């Protein structure tokens, strides 16, 4: 007999709900796991930047222009403003407001598109190509790394917007919207130390 041992039913799970919000939800933890992975990636890239900086006689090396503050400033301001709709969408998702999550996610998508404009100019005003020297390589690395996250968030928000407007929204989708909003916040927070490293560290040393 390969069957399981004898069992005795002592209770039932049938009266449990079929969804949850926030950290009670399983997917929230998966999301945190991936944020942890990418946060570690950001932190290590920042460590590589600081390592190269401490090894260099001058930072930026002689002859390299400092990165421009205008477009990066616009990007940073816009990114910080985008946190307002991100948090608003989060509240709508928790309150299960259909209209709120639809329009809020659309607004996030539009922010994602808008953010790519100053980001494009940021690349053009970094002051040094990636193949000039290690300083150029590492600031391009940091900016590319963050841009992949902005693009990912844009893609995710855009797909979510299309889906939300065309389908009947259930508990799981409110939870998806919540995760997307949390990820947006992660992309905003991750930018602040990177912004300081790329644009202000060379001016501080």
């Amino acid at each position, binding site marked *: 007999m390969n069957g399981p041992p004898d069992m005795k039913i002592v209770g039932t799970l049938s009266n449990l709900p079929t969804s949850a919000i926030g950290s009670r939800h399983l997917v929230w933890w998966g999301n945190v796991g991936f944020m942890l992975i990418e946060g570690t990636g950001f932190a290590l890239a920042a460590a590589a930047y600081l390592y*190269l900086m401490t090894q260099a006689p001058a930072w930026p090396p002689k002859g390299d222009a400092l990165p421009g503050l205008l477009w990066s400033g616009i990007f940073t301001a816009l990114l910080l403003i985008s946190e307002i709709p991100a948090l608003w969408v989060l509240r709508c998702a928790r309150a299960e407001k259909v209209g709120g999550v639809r329009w809020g996610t659309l607004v996030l998508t539009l922010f994602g598109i808008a953010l790519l404009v100053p980001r494009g100019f940021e690349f053009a005003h970094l002051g040094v190509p990636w193949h000039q020297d290690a300083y150029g390589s590492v600031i391009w690395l940091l900016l590319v790394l963050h841009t992949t996250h902005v693009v990912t968030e844009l893609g995710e928000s855009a797909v979510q917007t299309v889906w939300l407007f065309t389908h009947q929204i259930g508990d799981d989708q409110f939870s998806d919207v919540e995760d997307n909003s949390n990820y947006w916040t992660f992309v905003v927070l991750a930018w602040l130390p990177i912004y300081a490293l790329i644009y202000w560290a060379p001016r501080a040393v």
Partner: protein
Amino acid sequence: MTPDPRLEEEISRTWRDPPGLWGFIATVDHKRIAARYIVTALLLMFLAGMLAIDMRWQLTVPENTRMTPQLYNESFSLHGSTMLYLVSVPVMEAMAFWLVPLMLGARNMAFPRLGAFSYWLYLGGVLTLWIAHAMDITPDLGWFEYPPLAGPAYSPGHRADIWAQMITFTEVAALCASVNVAATILKMRPPGMTLARMPVFLWAMLIASIMTILSMPAIMLVTSMLIADRMVSTHFFSPGAGGDVILFQHLFWFFGHPEVYIIFIPATGFVSSIVETFSRRRLFGHSVLVLSIISIGALAFGLWVHHMFAVGLPRLGNDFYTAASMAIALPAGLQIFCWIATMWSGRPRFDTPMLWVIAFVLTFVIGGLSGIMTASAALDLQLTDTYFIVAHFHYVLVGGALFPLFGAFCYWYPKATGRMMSERWGKIALVGIVGGFNLGFFPMHLLGLMGMPRRVYTYPTGMGWDTLNQIATAGSVISVLGGLVFVANALLSYWRGAPSGADPWQGSTLEWASASPAPPWNFDYTPVVHSLTPMWDESRPLPVMDGLANDHREVLITSVTDAAPLYRQKSASPSIWPIVAALAVTIMFIASIFTPWAVPLGSVLIGAALTGWFWPPRPRAKQGPLGTGA
């Protein structure tokens, strides 16, 4: 309580895979995925073993001409890369995939499709390295490919790129697997299994997963920087343009050292399970074991510089890392004492799994002692790059991780197959492998002390190294023969082994409460846990809860610390999207060896695949601007 046939039929219809090839591709059953992982890893272990035998043949006599220097470089690079990236880490994840839901009394992993995706990506890494090898584009710079040697100036061609992309494949796979394992352990424990009542095995898998999440981004980052240096002329590692080759080593070993413990810590989970069951008593010092694992996990991130003692870092740095490296012997030692105390105070049974544990303790202690020797920066300067190091890391990795793995294989084989392995042939295999291993690797300590360098394809006559090398070769051959007996035993027992029953060893944890082999849904009911060893509790029959849906796939989600039931979560059905997404990722990774444009173009492809994956199948909207208005 007698099983209800109608319930069985319904639950079986819900959870079984579609038949044939479609089911093979689309399955999200954690046991099938894990079995694939394990079989692939064992095949690769065999191939890596053949490479080892070939290298031993080359070194058996001085000035041998069996291998050219190039072939020797390729052989040890392929052997090391395969064993570290494609065997040791994946096989440990596979054991977690297979066992964690069973030990939790759960019906599947937290993210079933992510599990399937992880395997297909791992397979992509395997094929990348070995198809490239078949096409004679074998990486030839060791398992860590340091620049400047790996940089564009000294390594034209694509050997180094193949290595770097193989890493990307396997690390993404490992990261996905780790998030999956950690989320499953944290959120899917059965009612009553508080953190304090969690078996050591699950702690080990949780800590190893968290370590993976915190360390593997380092190697993905550094190999991406290497590829960028090689392809788009960045200068991370070119000193002439302000780059620094030591940066590569720091980032590599920030991953590379924890990696050793990511392999070893799951093994401590196997050992704890086996020692408990075969000593027939609860583990001595459960909290000490758990705290040891946690402290090993934390200390492992503060040791990486001991791999770099010879690169000329500041003396204070070397002193600090010497001290930190020696400190890790304390928790490792505490674990060993706990296991010995469990055996000593229990009523031990010496079946094959337990014998593997004893072989582990003996071998691993030798490896630990040589580790304390090499932790000393002064001594390491003499020993580094000699055969002493080769002996040391084989003692810790084979003795410390593979011996427990073989024990775990024998221990859980009846649960996977419903049959027992032959004890007699199991013991013969053990004697062959353990005896051959010690015969093969112990002389390498002496060869290292005598100055024989590693990674050099031959040695001149008259060095006095001949006899010890011949003993080493003989030992390796015996060990491989033992390995073949082990595999033959596993294969033959699959058809001819005695039926095992659900619980042949009177195990202590919940996996033994499912049928052998476990059905696709693992458990009809959700177990309720009152102790660390639920299968040994007085309160029989086993207390369980009903109420999970049987007409669709559903799993129970509980709270992180006290495992209180929170809600019932839908669980994914078989799906083709994981393999489609893995193919999209594969196209991007492989193409990006040849052109940087593969990255943006491939991202579009991956985005499309992920959209298909995550597109929820629900009815069209009725309200709203794009609603159908019905």
